[in-house]
């Protein structure tokens, strides 16, 4: 069908031209190849964000022989100018050209707000060497806002030539002439035939114009989507972009469906009168010698002192530290480990990478006070990282596998992730910008995709549904798990899926899901380079001040072999630092991460009781349930504790066997292969976990040893395990692994369970090194909780938001541990929660809306005898007084909430100069007004409203009579009930979670006596979705189930929404008992595309600013 016609489409956009392109990069590429185009040129609007994906698609398809061998992908960008210059598509001729293109885009990006790019013709003139330019005769620019406070960015590299400033050309004619002069032989006039009526006339005019200017014309279709069937979707995208509905968009939609990829024959027919324009596409193509594989990468050399080679410097640093730690000479095991690592690092030339991370960690440690940090993830496998102080786990004595971090066979960069205190990470990030300069350092991007909720809302609007309809629909989309919008959801929300509008919505939502929506910055992955980073990838302004990020995300960076350092934020580190500080201040001792007394039996005794609220990682409900069963006795048990409550081991059904063996209820045995093989081959791998594989490394080694995988295959398996997006490749390994194991004489059943578990790791698994690193923090936080509960709680409250629980629950837990918690009071409190003679004094930061400078002013002006004195001495505005009164923080002045509210309203804050001079009381003593006493229930409601907790009581206390009359039990009564009893319990909702595959929903409710954990099977859930999702106070009816360790669960059957009862507490105040931060309904957790390590039990706890 394509005989004789050779054509390459060189003006094609993907959906990375956000809301303009309507096809994924890979779809564009495959369609182009299927149509027989000789090449496709991907050029998105002022961006190269989508090209790596296209490039990866081509690379993979070529490797699988799914593409014609001579099919080419050329990558460039469509430059859209802000000054009226028509759009110009630019392709780099070579590597240098690519650098110019990305620098040009960076110039435009840095001028604009996040997501925009402001380019002028003059910018192009400065960077057009080695670029091939296709001028399109019109501009598609839209308004972009310039950045108000552009960061300091050095575009200059010293190599600039002096040139005249190019003003904006006034006409197409002038552009052609000027570019012809500036870039002879590298300029084309692109012509499209979109069925606009005057196509032929335009063609002739433009051909004549081009001829006059001595330029060739180029046939292009300016494709926006792969297939013409995408027109409705494209119209919807356009409507979303314009913020109107499709029928209002009218002429602003494309008039027809012609902007799809067309075959060479079709293009030849359309350009029958100008065959030279078709032929020109090949000529342009032949000039492009650039491919993304030419991007070579060099790590910065900064941290190396002059006169040293990076590798020597690294070895020097590491060896001197090793000798310091082992003054009597290194044990042979260490020598071997170091030699192995150094050889590999030298071979791979990664010394600079280690030194860079070391440099950043050094910076954090050298601050005053030092910023706590700790490496996580696979870096903990490396002795070098350990000795450089990046990680805290000793890999030698823990037998960790270096090859898990870096190996010879694996041609991919290692990955060092370091956690910093979440409140101070910004300091580290700004240091990186300062150290390496912004043109050499950038945060990786994260592509934000269309998700069910946003898609329903935006598509609904575009097809003209009213907001109440879309809100209702979006509301019932289960935040976390929906990757599509099943019809069942529609029916549930009360819509008929056969209704034409709803069917339409459904269809578009399905198509739009997983489209990229916009770029955002990665939580902390930095790409650092020796040479200019903006010659590899364009740099953008972030939405946050002083952040700049690159256009490519994690996957792109991996595909191009760029190295990345993850600078992550961890709330627990902040909390630990604050605890240490308070310990020092209160004379409790001077501790660091390394000097906390190890293996303290009291800590383990506490954990064995499941008493872990507030601690790191092991504080979730699932972990709390596991603790009494696993009964950790030593550090390694914590490592297992962290790793075992994960979907991997759970889905692989490894948990129960492990527990049984650990408790001595089952014989520890190691599955053995049939005779010719070593019967003990698994012992070495599995002995620390009683023969049950729990960690990612074990699963890998198992595949290698028991199923005889080659290192290559194991590596493939590991990749498949590590990444969500590759999970499609997992089944390939299934037969291989199971058959391999069975052939070598293992039980079919064991083999299948092993595979299941590996599959589970695919979604969320923990490598042992990572669990080790985290276990360290688990221990320290548990130690603090065990020995210094008041300080620990204060530090937790001062580090909010973080962790699993809301302040109310943390405070409640502290009180349960005999901590004396004192209310906020102007004469005693500080901004932070603090320690007052061993008791926890709440701070002003708990009052919603209170300002820190008010708090400081109060502290400086203390003490006060009256409200007026407070207002005058601390110079507080009325708002502050009202907040203090409402928060009931004036009791030491003899005022309760209601009296204080009255006083606050009559206290003038603008001091009259005369009174100030006299320093006299401004208000005359007034006869006390007899205000009616405020009932406690109202106090509690007001406390919750103001400070999200109350020390005076629990809302449920005041409703107890009502519920007791109905025969509804307290949580404590439920907890004490016999196994199998049917009970009803009421409480305010703390968390609702739907982990793993979503078979069950865990609900935790709380009343004045404690908490009850309920489990609701999903089949029961579907029927009472509304009650579960909407309740703030619920009554749960179900059967008590008591495990042999004494853990009580309520197996829920009916849930009733009784939220309205809360209104009885107060007419004025809304007793909004805050949900715990782990609640998934209020805070949906989207499955992340990423490394399992990134997926945390704590939703959204990584990045607070």
């Amino acid at each position, binding site marked *: 069908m394509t005989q004789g016609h050779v054509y390459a489409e060189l003006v094609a956009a993907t959906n990375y031209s956000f809301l303009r392109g309507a096809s994924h990069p890979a779809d564009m590429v495959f369609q182009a190849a299927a149509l027989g185009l000789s090449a496709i040129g991907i050029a998105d609007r002022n961006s190269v964000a989508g090209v790596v994906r296209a490039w990866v698609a081509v690379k993979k398809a070529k490797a699988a022989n799914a593409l014609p061998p001579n099919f080419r992908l050329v990558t460039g960008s469509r430059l859209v100018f802000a000054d009226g210059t028509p759009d110009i598509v630019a392709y780099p001729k070579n590597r240098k050209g690519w650098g110019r293109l990305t620098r040009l885009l960076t110039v435009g990006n840095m001028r604009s707000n996040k997501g925009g790019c402001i380019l002028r013709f003059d910018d192009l003139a400065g960077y057009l060497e080695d670029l091939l330019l296709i001028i399109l005769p019109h501009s598609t620019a839209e308004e972009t806002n310039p950045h108000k406070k552009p960061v300091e960015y050095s575009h200059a590299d010293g190599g600039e030539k002096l040139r005249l400033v190019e003003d904006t050309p006034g006409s197409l004619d002038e552009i052609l002439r000027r570019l012809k002069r500036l870039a002879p032989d590298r300029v084309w006039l692109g012509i499209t035939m979109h069925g*606009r009526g*005057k196509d032929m006339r335009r063609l002739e005019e433009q051909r004549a114009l081009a001829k006059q200017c001595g330029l060739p014309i180029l046939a292009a279709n300016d494709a926006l989507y792969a297939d013409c069937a995408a027109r409705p979707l494209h119209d919807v995208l356009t409507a979303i972009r314009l913020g109107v509905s*499709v029928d209002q968009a*009218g002429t602003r939609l494309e*008039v027809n469906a012609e902007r799809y990829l067309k075959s060479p024959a079709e293009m030849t027919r359309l350009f029958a009168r100008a065959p030279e324009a078709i032929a020109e596409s090949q000529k342009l193509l032949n000039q492009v010698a650039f491919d993304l594989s030419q991007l070579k990468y060099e790590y910065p050399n900064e941290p190396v002192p002059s006169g040293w080679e990076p590798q020597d410097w690294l070895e020097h640093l590491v060896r001197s530290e090793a000798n310091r730690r082992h003054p009597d000479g290194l044990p042979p095991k260490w020598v071997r480990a170091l030699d192995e690592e150094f050889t590999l690092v030298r071979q791979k030339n990664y010394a600079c990478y280690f030194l860079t991370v070391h440099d950043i960690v050094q910076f954090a440690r050298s601050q005053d006070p030092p910023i706590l940090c700790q490496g996580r993830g696979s870096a903990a496998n490396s002795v070098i990282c350990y000795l450089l102080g990046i990680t805290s786990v000793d890999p030698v004595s823990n037998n960790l596998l270096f090859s898990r971090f870096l190996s010879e066979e694996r041609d991919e960069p290692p990955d060092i992730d370091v956690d910093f205190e979440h409140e101070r990470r910004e300091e580290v990030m700004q240091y990186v910008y300062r150290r390496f300069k912004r043109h050499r350092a950038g945060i990786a991007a994260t592509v934000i995709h269309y998700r069910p909720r946003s898609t329903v809302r935006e598509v609904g609007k575009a097809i003209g549904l009213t907001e109440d309809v879309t809100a209702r629909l979006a509301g019932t989309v289960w935040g976390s798990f929906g990757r599509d919008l099943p019809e069942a959801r529609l029916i549930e929300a009360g819509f008929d899926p056969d209704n034409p509008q709803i069917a339409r919505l459904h269809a578009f939502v399905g198509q739009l899901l997983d489209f990229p929506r916009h770029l955002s910055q990665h939580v902390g992955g930095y790409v650092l380079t020796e040479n200019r980073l903006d010659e590899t990838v364009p740099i953008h302004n972030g939405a946050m001040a002083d952040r700049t990020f690159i256009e490519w995300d994690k996957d792109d960076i991996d595909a191009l072999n760029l190295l990345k350092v993850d600078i992550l934020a961890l709330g627990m580190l902040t909390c630990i630092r604050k605890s240490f500080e308070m310990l020092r201040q209160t004379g409790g001792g001077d501790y660091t991460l390394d000097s906390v007394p190890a293996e303290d039996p009291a800590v383990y005794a506490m954990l064995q009781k499941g008493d872990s609220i507030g601690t790191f990682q092991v504080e979730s409900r699932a972990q709390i349930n596991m603790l009494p069963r696993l009964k950790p006795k030593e550090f390694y048990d914590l490592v297992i504790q962290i790793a075992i409550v994960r979907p991997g081991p759970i889905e692989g059904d490894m948990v129960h066997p492990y527990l049984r063996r650990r408790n001595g209820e089952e014989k520890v045995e190691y599955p053995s292969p049939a005779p010719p093989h070593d019967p003990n081959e698994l012992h070495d791998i599995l002995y620390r976990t009683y023969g049950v594989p729990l960690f990612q490394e074990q699963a890998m080694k198992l595949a290698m040893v028991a199923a005889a995988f080659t290192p290559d295959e194991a590596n493939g398996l590991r990749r498949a395990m590590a990444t969500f997006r590759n999970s499609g490749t997992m089944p390939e390994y299934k037969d291989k692994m199971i058959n391999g194991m069975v052939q070598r004489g293992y039980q079919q059943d064991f083999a299948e369970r092993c595979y299941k578990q590996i599959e589970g790791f695919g979604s969320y698994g923990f490598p042992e090194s990572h669990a080790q690193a985290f276990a360290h923090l688990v221990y320290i936080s548990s130690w603090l909780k065990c020995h210094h509960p008041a300080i620990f709680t204060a530090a937790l409250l001062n580090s909010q938001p973080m962790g699993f629980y809301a302040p109310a629950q943390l405070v409640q837990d502290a009180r349960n541990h005999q901590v004396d918690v004192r209310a906020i009071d102007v004469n005693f409190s500080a901004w932070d929660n603090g320690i007052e003679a061993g008791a926890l004094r709440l701070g002003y930061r708990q009052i919603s809306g209170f300002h820190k400078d008010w708090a400081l002013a109060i502290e400086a002006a203390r003490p006060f005898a009256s409200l007026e004195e407070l207002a005058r001495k601390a110079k507080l505005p009325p708002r502050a007084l009202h907040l203090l009164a409402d928060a009931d923080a004036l009791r030491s002045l003899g005022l309760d909430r209601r009296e204080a509210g009255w006083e606050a309203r009559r206290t003038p804050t603008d001091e009259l100069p005369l009174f100030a001079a006299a320093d006299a009381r401004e208000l005359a003593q007034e006869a006390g007004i007899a205000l009616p006493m405020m009932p406690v229930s109202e106090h509690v409601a007001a406390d919750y409203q103001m400070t999200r907790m109350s020390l005076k009581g629990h809302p449920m206390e005041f409703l107890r009579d009502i519920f007791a009359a109905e025969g509804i039990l307290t949580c404590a009564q439920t907890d004490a009930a016999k196994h199998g009893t049917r009970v009803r319990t009421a409480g305010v909702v703390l968390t609702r979670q739907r982990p793993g595959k979503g078979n069950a929903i865990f609900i935790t409710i709380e009343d004045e006596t404690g908490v009850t954990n309920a489990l609701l099977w999903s089949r029961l859930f579907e029927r009472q979705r509304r009650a579960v999702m909407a309740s703030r106070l619920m009554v749960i009816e179900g059967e008590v189930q008591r495990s042999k360790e004494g853990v009580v669960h309520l197996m829920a059957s009916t849930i009733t929404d009784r939220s309205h009862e809360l209104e009885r507490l107060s007419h004025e105040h809304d007793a909004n008992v805050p949900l715990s931060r782990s609640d998934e309904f209020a805070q949906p957790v989207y499955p992340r595309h990423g490394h399992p390590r990134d997926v945390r039990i704590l939703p959204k706890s990584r990045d607070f600013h």
Partner: protein
Amino acid sequence: MRLIRERIDALSDPLDPGFGYDLIQLTVPTADILLPSQAGLETKVDRSAQTEALIDRLSVRLGSNRVRYFVERNSHIPERAVVECAAQSGQPQKEWPQETEAEPPMRPFRLFETPQRVEALASIPDGPPRQFRWRKSLHHIVAYEGPERIAAEWWRRKAGHEHGKGGPTRDYYRVEDSEGRRFWLFRHGLYSETDAPIWYLHGLFA
């Protein structure tokens, strides 16, 4: 006052007052003060105010339903692109797109309310018509321009978002027959959408 005079003038005929009126009583149910506006020395005369005054006068004299104008609507489909309505209906009138100089108009001023079905001969798949028969007479086409391809508004159809159900696409051609008459024809449906597309005459160029 000026408008009232118009009204009285318009009334004169059917009422035939013979010797004239002794008294005409005007009732003013509500009255607003019309403040005189000062024209600046250099401000230009407000053209639109003049047009509005003319529309008011004509509407009073001829009846408000009889003075009409075209309002542009936001659609690619020619028959939906403009709507005729009473000039006093308050529909805002947008600026009409300015025709580029030296370029013929792309659409005729006169459209048929219902496009006229014609028999046409054209090359496959999307070539221009060669000749067509309209109201029994055969027109040989000597010059054409096009196609201007206008896709249907899929959102007006029940399952329009599904591929192929969005409605037939139109290919418009401006053509001139051997006697110099100019027509606006369209093919209703691409060959990928239908086997035998029907041709329509949608308008005549002046």
